[in-house]
C-alpha cells in the first residue's frame, strides 16, 4: 500500500520543483507510473484482504475503485492543460497539488481498513474538491455550488461519525476485517432505525439518492473539467463503496427501513432521466444522467441481494469511465465555442467528425449497449432488483428506455442539426484530446473481455 501512497504524496513536492516548461508533463508521467504500481494490488479471485498492518488493505470491493482513481489522475491532468493555460505557473502548480491531495485522500479511503481512518479520509476528500470547484470554476455560481456540495455532505456525515463510534463501542473494534468476521448479534433496540439511517445517510447523499441530489447538478456544472471528471467518476463511487461496506456491518439489524430509500432511488432514476430530456445545458444533462445511473445502483445494493455487490462494482467502474469521458467531450466543445447550451453547439459533426465517433462511443456506453461493461453492470443490477420484487422490472425497464432516449437526444443535438454560422470554423481536434478519449474507452473495452477483475463474490 505504501508503494502507492508515498509516490502520490511525493507528487506534490515534485510538481512544485519541476521547471515551468514541464509543469504538466512531469505530473502526468509520474501519475502514469503510479497506475502501474497500483496494478500490483489487483488480485482477482482473492477473498482475503491484501493487508499491510492494521490500517491499510484492499479487497475486491476497493481494488477496482482504487485502480479507477489511479487511472483518472493523469487523465485529469491532460484534460485541464488547455483550460488552465492562461493561469500563471504558480497557480497551475497549486491546481495540480489540490488534485494530488484529493487523490491521496481517495486512495486512503479505498484502502482504509479502520472505520475511523475511513471516515476521516472520506471527509478529507471534500476540502481539495471544494478548492478546485470554488477557485477554478468559471461562473459566479460556483460559490453557491461549493457551499451546497460541502454542506450537504458534511451535514449528512455528522450522524455517520456518531454511528461509527457506536459500532466501535458495541463491537470493541473498529477494524473492517474483524467486523466482518465477528458473529452477528441480534439487536432489537428501538433505535435500530436511527442507527441505520445515520449510517446510511452520508452515503446516500454522496451517491446521490434522488431527494438529496440537489448538490450534484450544481457542483458538476460549475466545476472545471478536472473537477467534473473526478466528481462524476470517483466521488460518487465513494458513496457506493461506503454503502457496500456498511451493509456488511449491518447484517444484524432487523429493520425494514431500507425499503424507503430503495423505492426513492428507483423512482429517482426514472425521474432524473426525464429531467435530462428537458435540460438545455450539456453538462447539466450529463450530471443528471449520473444521478439516474447511481439511483439504480443504490436500490440494488439496498436489496442485500448476492448479485448486488458484483453488479454495483461493474456499474461503478463502467459509469466512472463513461461519465468522465462525456464530461471531457463536453469540455472539448466548450473550449471551442465558449458555450454550454445545446442550442448553440449543434451540428459539430460537420466541423469535427473525429470527435463524433468518440461522442458516439461515449453515448453508446452511456446507453448500456451490449456488450459493454455498462450493459453487464446494469443487467446485473436489474436482475438483482427483479429477484427482490418482480414489479421493479417496470421501473428499471422504463428507466433504461428513458436513458437511451436522452442519450440519443444529447448525441443528435450536439452532432446533428444545423451548424450555426459562427462555429463553422473551429480549431481542429488535438492529439491530446484523442489520447484522452482513447485512454477513457480502452479500459472500458478491455474489461469486456476480462470482467473477473471487477467481480466480487
Amino acid at each position, binding site marked *: 500500500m505504501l508503494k502507492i501512497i508515498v509516490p502520490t504524496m511525493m507528487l506534490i513536492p515534485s510538481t512544485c520543483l519541476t521547471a515551468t516548461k514541464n509543469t504538466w508533463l512531469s505530473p502526468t508521467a509520474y501519475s502514469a507510473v503510479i497506475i502501474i504500481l497500483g496494478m500490483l494490488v489487483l488480485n482477482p479471485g482473492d477473498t482475503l484482504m491484501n493487508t499491510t498492518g492494521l490500517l491499510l488493505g484492499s479487497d475486491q470491493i476497493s481494488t477496482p475503485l482504487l485502480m479507477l482513481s489511479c487511472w483518472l489522475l493523469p487523465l485529469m491532468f491532460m484534460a485541464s492543460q488547455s483550460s488552465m493555460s492562461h493561469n500563471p505557473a504558480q497557480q497551475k502548480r497549486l491546481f495540480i497539488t489540490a488534485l494530488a491531495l484529493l487523490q491521496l485522500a481517495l486512495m486512503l479511503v479505498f484502502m482504509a481498513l479502520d472505520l475511523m481512518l475511513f471516515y476521516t479520509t472520506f471527509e478529507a476528500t471534500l476540502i481539495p474538491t471544494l478548492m478546485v470547484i470554488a477557485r477554478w470554476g468559471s461562473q459566479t455560481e460556483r460559490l453557491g455550488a461549493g457551499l451546497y456540495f460541502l454542506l450537504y455532505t458534511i451535514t449528512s456525515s455528522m450522524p455517520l461519525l456518531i454511528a461509527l463510534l457506536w459500532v466501535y463501542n458495541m463491537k470493541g473494534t473498529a477494524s473492517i476485517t474483524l467486523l466482518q468476521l465477528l458473529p452477528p448479534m441480534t439487536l432489537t433496540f428501538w433505535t435500530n432505525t436511527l442507527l441505520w439511517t445515520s449510517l446510511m445517510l452520508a452515503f446516500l447523499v454522496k451517491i446521490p439518492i434522488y431527494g438529496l441530489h440537489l448538490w450534484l447538478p450544481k457542483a458538476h456544472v460549475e466545476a472545471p473539467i478536472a473537477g467534473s471528471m473526478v466528481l462524476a467518476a470517483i466521488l460518487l463511487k465513494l458513496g457506493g463503496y461506503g454503502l457496500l461496506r456498511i451493509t456488511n456491518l449491518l447484517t444484524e439489524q432487523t429493520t425494514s427501513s431500507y425499503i424507503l430509500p430503495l423505492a426513492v432511488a428507483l423512482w429517482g432514476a426514472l425521474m432524473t432521466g426525464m429531467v435530462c430530456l428537458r435540460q438545455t445545458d450539456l453538462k447539466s444533462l450529463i450530471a443528471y444522467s449520473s444521478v439516474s445511473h447511481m439511483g439504480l445502483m443504490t436500490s440494488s445494493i439496498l436489496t442485500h441481494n448476492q448479485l448486488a455487490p458484483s453488479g454495483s462494482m461493474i456499474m461503478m467502474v463502467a459509469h466512472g469511465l463513461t461519465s468522465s469521458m462525456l464530461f471531457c467531450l463536453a469540455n472539448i466543445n466548450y473550449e471551442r465555442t465558449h*458555450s454550454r447550451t445545446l442550442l448553440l453547439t449543434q451540428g459539430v459533426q460537420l466541423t469535427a467528425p473525429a470527435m463524433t465517433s468518440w461522442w458516439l462511443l461515449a453515448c453508446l456506453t452511456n446507453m448500456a449497449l451490449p456488450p459493454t461493461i455498462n450493459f453487464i453492470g446494469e443487467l446485473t443490477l436489474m436482475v438483482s432488483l427483479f429477484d427482490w420484487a418482480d414489479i421493479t422490472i417496470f421501473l428499471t425497464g422504463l428507466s433504461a428506455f428513458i436513458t437511451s432516449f436522452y442519450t440519443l437526444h444529447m448525441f443528435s443535438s450536439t452532432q446533428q442539426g444545423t451548424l450555426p454560422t459562427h462555429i463553422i470554423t473551429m480549431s481542429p481536434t488535438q492529439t491530446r484530446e484523442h489520447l484522452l478519449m482513447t485512454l477513457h474507452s480502452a479500459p472500458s473495452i478491455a474489461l469486456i473481455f476480462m470482467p473477473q477483475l471487477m467481480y466480487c463474490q
Partner: protein
Amino acid sequence: MMRTCRALLPRPGRRLRSGPGRLWDLPGDLQKTVSNFQNQLKENVTNLFKNPFFDEKRPPMQAEVVIAGGGVMGWSVAYWLKALEPRKNTLRVLVVERDTTYSRASTVLSVGGIRQQFSLPENIQMSRYSAYFLRTINVCQEHLGVAGEPAIDIQFNPSGYLFLATEERAAMLEENVSIQRAEGSEVILLSPTQLKKKFPWLNTDGVALASYGLEDEGWFDPWSLLTAFRRKAISMGVHHCCGEVTSFTMAFYDTVTPTGEERTVSHIKYARIQMPDSLEYCQVACAIVVNAAGAWSRKLTEIAEVESSVSKTKQIFKLPVEPKKRYVYVWHSPDGPGLNCPMLIDTTGAYFRREGLGGNYVGGMSPAEDEEPDIQDLEVDHEFFQEKVWPKLAHRVPAFESLKVKGSWAGYYDYNTFDQNAVLGLHPTVLNMVFVTGFSGHGLQQSPAAGRAVAELILNKKFETINLSRFSADRFLSGEPVLERNIV
C-alpha cells in the same frame, strides 16, 4: 413659574399625563410590531443569502451572448433573445453599456418618429411590426409588461407623417405609396386642394402631391421604450454591466471560400471589458458578440479586425457606418398649426412636428452633403436654424414667421454611408460578430423588429418573421447597395 410647577404636581383628581389620553391599542400595536419585525427579518435574511463575492458591478466570467451597446437596439436584442429562447435560462446574455447616463446615445436624443412610408418592403414590414409591438407593449407575457410594475406609457401620438413632393418627385412618391399600400400600410395621396382643406395652415406653394399616413404613424417617447426594454429584459434574467469593450481575444483560421479564394477568418473567444473610471478590466468568455454600438459601431468592428492586420492579411471589409451629427430645435409658436399637425416633411427636406399640447414644435433638417457638421461634440449650431431651416419652414407654414426658439440639442445618426439602410447579420470574416447597426436615423422605430430579427438569427440561424437577408453585411463586399429613397 412656581405656580405652574405646583400646578403640575399630582393632586387628587389630576393625572400625571400631560397629553390627551390614549387607549392602549393592543391589536394595532402588535400588528405594527409584527410587521416591523417581519420586514427587518426579511432584510436580514436576504442580506445573509446575498453572496458576498457576487459583485453587481462586474460582468460574469462567461456569457453566451455579449451585446456591446446598451441603447434601444442592444436592449431590444437582449429582450428578444430571452423572449424567444426555447426554455428558461438557456442563454446567458450580457449587455455592456459604457455611459449609463446616455448622454451621447442616439436613442434618447432622437425625435422619436415612427412611419411606414419607406420605399423598401423590408423597411415597411419592420416599421409595421414595430407599430404593432408599440400598440401591444403592455401585454405582460408577450411584450414588455412586468407583473406588479406600473404600465408603460409610451406616449404614442398617432398623428401621421405627411410627405410633400414637387412635380419632379411626384411620380416617385406615388410609386412609393403603391409599394406601401401593397404591404398593407394605410397611406393616402393628397392633391394640393385636399391638402389645403385638411391642413388650412399649410402653404401648398410648389407642392404637387403629398402622402399622408393614416394609421400606425406618429411619434413616441424613446426614453420610455428604452427603459421598458431594459426593465423587462432584466426581469427575464439579462445581465448588464457598465463598462467599455476595449479589445477581443481572437482565434484565427485559414479557410477557402466557395469561390476558391483563400481567406483568414477569426473567432472571438474573449471580450475584454474595461470598468468605468478605473484601470481594471474583466475578461468575459463569449460565444457571440452583438455589435449594437450605434454611431461607434465602426470603432468596435475595427477592434475585432485590428488583430487580423497584425497577421498580415488584407482587410477586405470595412463597416461603412459613421456618426453624423443632426440638430433638433424646439420652438414655440402660438399661431401655429395647433393639434391638427402631423410630422411634416417638406419638399426641401426640412421637417417639424408638434410637441405636446401647448403650441411647441420640434423640427430640423438634414444638412447637405458638403455642410456636414463636425462630429467631435454635440454642440448646436444656431446659425443653421436661422439661415437654413427657418426660412423653409416659414415658407411652408406662414404662421411660423413669428416663432421663438426655446431650446435645441444635437444627436448622432449611425449613418450607413453605403446605402443608408440597416446592417443586420454576421460579419464576413469575424465569424461570431453580429451587426445590428447602421440605421441612419430610422433605428428607433425599427428597434423591436430588428431586435427580433437578430434574436431569430442567433437562436434559429435564419430570419423567420421578416426576411431581412438583404440587409446582410455581404452587400458591402459584393458592392450592391440596397437603397432607400425616403430618408429624412
